[in-house]
């Protein structure tokens, strides 16, 4: 059956078609040229270009002359897994935002450099023989550069400040905007009055420094989004859709609409939410409910995206499920999201404190000088100089700079952030609630006793398993790293697979099918919670036990978290007999089994009422409401869509270590954010008295501003290390 990629293909002018692919495995420059050369060698391909930073390839070809599958096959031959993707709206927007910031930054930097050139001349002119006319000329030139540049490059700040004021809030951009506007306005007035000092350089330099911080922040966020979109694309989720009563076609999940009829064969993951209209099977819902025991499905049974069809073929009507688990979860999720209090970010809290203090100081300076007998003009100029020198250059960089460095460290540790303020919320956490299935355990079941069986038997059983689509067989094939199926193997549905090798009959399947009932009974007694699959070659019999296994480092990570003083709990939708052994192995005393989604939320709410900051780590559909209800949430990349969307961060890979690393990095990042805020306070404590006394000349303002910015940025770099304290 051919796959239908038409959903991803864009038809360009000039009879060409274009497709963008996410590619797994691009590691160096060599890969780039190999991919580009090989793809350009494919007939009718007119353009192939690798984007190394995004790990993506754009391919164009003569429309209609090439089956896009050839491109994917060619990449597969080279050893790269590739899948087309659809650019998400959010990603498109943040790319546009990043370009705008970069344009603003370029304008501000150009203006700052040119004005500084003029300013340095003016400053040295104060001690040499510059005439007042020349100084005024230089000031006018500076104004000519600074005013349009600030109007253009300051837009991101002005817009954000206006937005905040309209909502009756104060954010960091409000004092920044006030400072910039007043500095420019006063400088123009001073220039008109032929005064010796103008602050055009300070205003534009401030814009340039802050834009640099914002651009880096935006870029980091975009990188995370790109990586997440690639992961989603590489999952290559497809569904087999009936395009007519008889005809089926494999289409990407994005092209499935409610009301479509899809076919789900045994061993496949069900890619959609819907209702079974025909067929009978067992469904493994562990990814959705946490329950590892299979559920029977027949006509009328609702099924969920992410569940695994075990035994029979099903026809499913998409999106028709009503009054089901999904509805219940959506209702809980909506309520939890609504009830979620908006987290007040550190920078917003700082600016709520900071803006009034600074503006009041400026006001008192004005009144103080006026009362002391200075002219109104001098009093106003001094007051504005106070505002300029306190304009939160360091403060505006103090937190974004740490944010950038910390998200970079998280990215390397295998954590992708969904929410911008997740780092700060992670740092506050003191309680960690884990889901069991798919979170503490690996999402795919594994063979428990692979090492106890002779290697040649395991290899042969694995090869035979390749001929079956049953999940237990798939686990066995994975355990044996089998790649070569056995010729002539026949699957007897519901029983197992058999083949004949060198005249000896080999069988894999149910214990009864292999005549291994006695061995199976012994194995069942030893590992009561495992599913069994038997193998027979001639007269020898072996039984493999397959079950969900803990992530390799789960015990160490949980012990480490507990040693660090975190309270760890397990809330699982699975039955008690499956949860208890795991909780015991991990040394977690607080565990609950058979918990419904509503009970999960209730427990999280209870913990929060006790004043605890809860991290919820979960992957199932049943975890989604609890993830939204917790202070901060993490889910593994294997989680279902809805759950991943509800989580603040996603962790990659087979290990649990990223969760612990995230907490360490977040805590250190928050500590450095606080340090930076204190550095800004110390800077102000020194600079403000100087400004109040009227000594803050443009030269001093420029030195203070760049000095403090460099200091906080250098301090932020300490958040870089991903290990240690």
């Amino acid at each position, binding site marked *: 059956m051919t796959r239908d990629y038409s959903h991803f293909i864009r038809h360009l002018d000039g009879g060409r078609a274009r497709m963008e692919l996410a590619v797994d495995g691009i590691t160096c420059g060599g890969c*780039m040229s190999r991919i580009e050369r090989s793809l350009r060698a494919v007939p009718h391909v007119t353009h192939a270009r690798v984007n*190394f930073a995004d790990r993506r390839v754009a391919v164009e070809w003569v429309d209609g002359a090439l089956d896009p599958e050839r491109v994917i096959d060619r990449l597969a031959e080279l050893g790269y897994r590739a899948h087309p993707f659809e650019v998400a709206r959010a990603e498109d927007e943040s790319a546009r935002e990043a370009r705008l910031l970069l344009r603003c930054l370029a304008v501000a930097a150009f203006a700052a450099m040119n004005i500084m050139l003029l300013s340095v001349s003016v400053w040295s002119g104060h001690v040499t023989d510059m005439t007042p006319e*020349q100084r005024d000329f230089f000031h006018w030139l500076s104004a000519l550069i600074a005013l349009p540049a600030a109007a253009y490059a300051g837009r991101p700040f002005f817009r954000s400040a206006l937005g905040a004021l309209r909502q009756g809030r104060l954010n960091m951009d409000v004092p920044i905007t006030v400072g910039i506007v007043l500095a420019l306005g006063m400088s123009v007035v001073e220039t008109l009055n032929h005064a010796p000092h103008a602050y055009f350089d300070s205003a534009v330099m401030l814009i340039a420094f802050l834009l640099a911080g914002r651009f880096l922040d935006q870029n980091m966020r975009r990188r995370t989004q790109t990586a997440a979109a690639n992961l989603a694309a590489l999952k290559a989720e497809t569904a087999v859709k009936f395009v007519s009563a008889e005809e089926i076609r494999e289409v990407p999940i994005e092209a499935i609409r409610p009301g479509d009829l899809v076919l789900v064969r045994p061993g496949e993951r069900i890619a959609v939410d819907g209702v079974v209209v025909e067929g009978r099977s067992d469904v493994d819902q562990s990814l959705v409910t946490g329950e590892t025991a299979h559920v029977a499905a027949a006509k009328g049974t609702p099924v969920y995206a992410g569940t695994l069809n075990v035994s029979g073929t099903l026809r499913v009507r998409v999106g028709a499920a009503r009054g089901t688990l999904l509805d219940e979860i959506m209702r809980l999720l909506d309520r939890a999201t609504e009830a979620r209090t908006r987290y007040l970010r550190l920078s917003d809290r700082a600016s709520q404190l900071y803006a009034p203090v600074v503006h009041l100081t400026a006001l008192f300076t004005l009144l103080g000088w006026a009362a002391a007998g200075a002219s109104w003009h001098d009093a106003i100029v001094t007051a504005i100089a106070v505002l300029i020198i306190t304009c939160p250059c360091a403060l505006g960089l103090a937190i974004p700079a740490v944010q950038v460095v910390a998200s970079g460290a998280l990215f390397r540790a295998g954590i992708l952030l969904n929410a911008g303020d997740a780092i700060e919320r992670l740092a506050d956490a003191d309680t960690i609630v884990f889901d069991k299935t798919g979170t503490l355990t690996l999402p795919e079941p594994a063979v428990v006793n692979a090492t106890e069986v002779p290697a040649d038997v395991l290899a042969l059983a694995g090869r035979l398993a390749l001929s079956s689509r049953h999940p237990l067989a798939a686990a066995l094939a994975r355990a044996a790293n089998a790649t070569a199926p056995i010729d002539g193997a026949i699957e007897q549905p519901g029983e197992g697979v058999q083949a004949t090798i060198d005249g000896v009959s080999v069988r894999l399947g149910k214990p009864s099918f292999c005549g291994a009932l006695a061995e199976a009974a012994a194995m069942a007694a030893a590992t009561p919670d495992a599913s069994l699959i038997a193998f027979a070659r001639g007269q020898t019999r072996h039984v493999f036990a397959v079950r969900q296994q803990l992530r390799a480092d789960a015990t160490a990570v949980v012990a480490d978290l507990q040693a660090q003083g975190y309270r760890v709990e397990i809330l699982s939708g699975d039955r008690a007999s499956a949860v208890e052994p795991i909780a015991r192995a991990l040394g977690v005393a607080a565990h609950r089994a058979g918990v419904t989604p509503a009970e999960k939320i209730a427990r999280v709410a209870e913990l929060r009422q006790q004043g605890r900051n809860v991290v919820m780590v979960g992957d199932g559909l049943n975890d989604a409401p609890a993830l939204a209800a917790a202070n901060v949430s993490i889910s593994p990349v294997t989680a279902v869509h809805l759950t991943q969307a509800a989580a603040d961060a996603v962790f990659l890979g087979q290990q649990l270590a990223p969760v612990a690393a995230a907490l360490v990095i977040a805590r250190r990042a928050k500590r450095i954010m606080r340090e930076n805020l204190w550095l800004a306070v110390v800077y102000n404590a020194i600079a403000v008295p100087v400004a109040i006394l009227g000594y803050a000349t443009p030269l001093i303002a420029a030195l203070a501003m760049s000095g403090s910015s460099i200091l906080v940025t250098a301090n932020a770099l300490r958040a870089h290390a991903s290990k240690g304290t």
Partner: protein
Amino acid sequence: MEVLIYLVPLALGLGLVGLAAFMWALKSGQFEDLDGAAWRAIGDEDEAPRPPTDGDGPRAPPH
């Protein structure tokens, strides 16, 4: 000091040329793939796609 009359516009003009060049580079997508550009610079490949007829024949030795 009359020198300022042409030096200042010259300095500003040069700055604007730099700015315009940067804007052009940004618009033409030169900043889309910074990591890749680093590798491309040291690649030994010809960047231009070769015409389909060329490819098997050995290159003519340089004269």
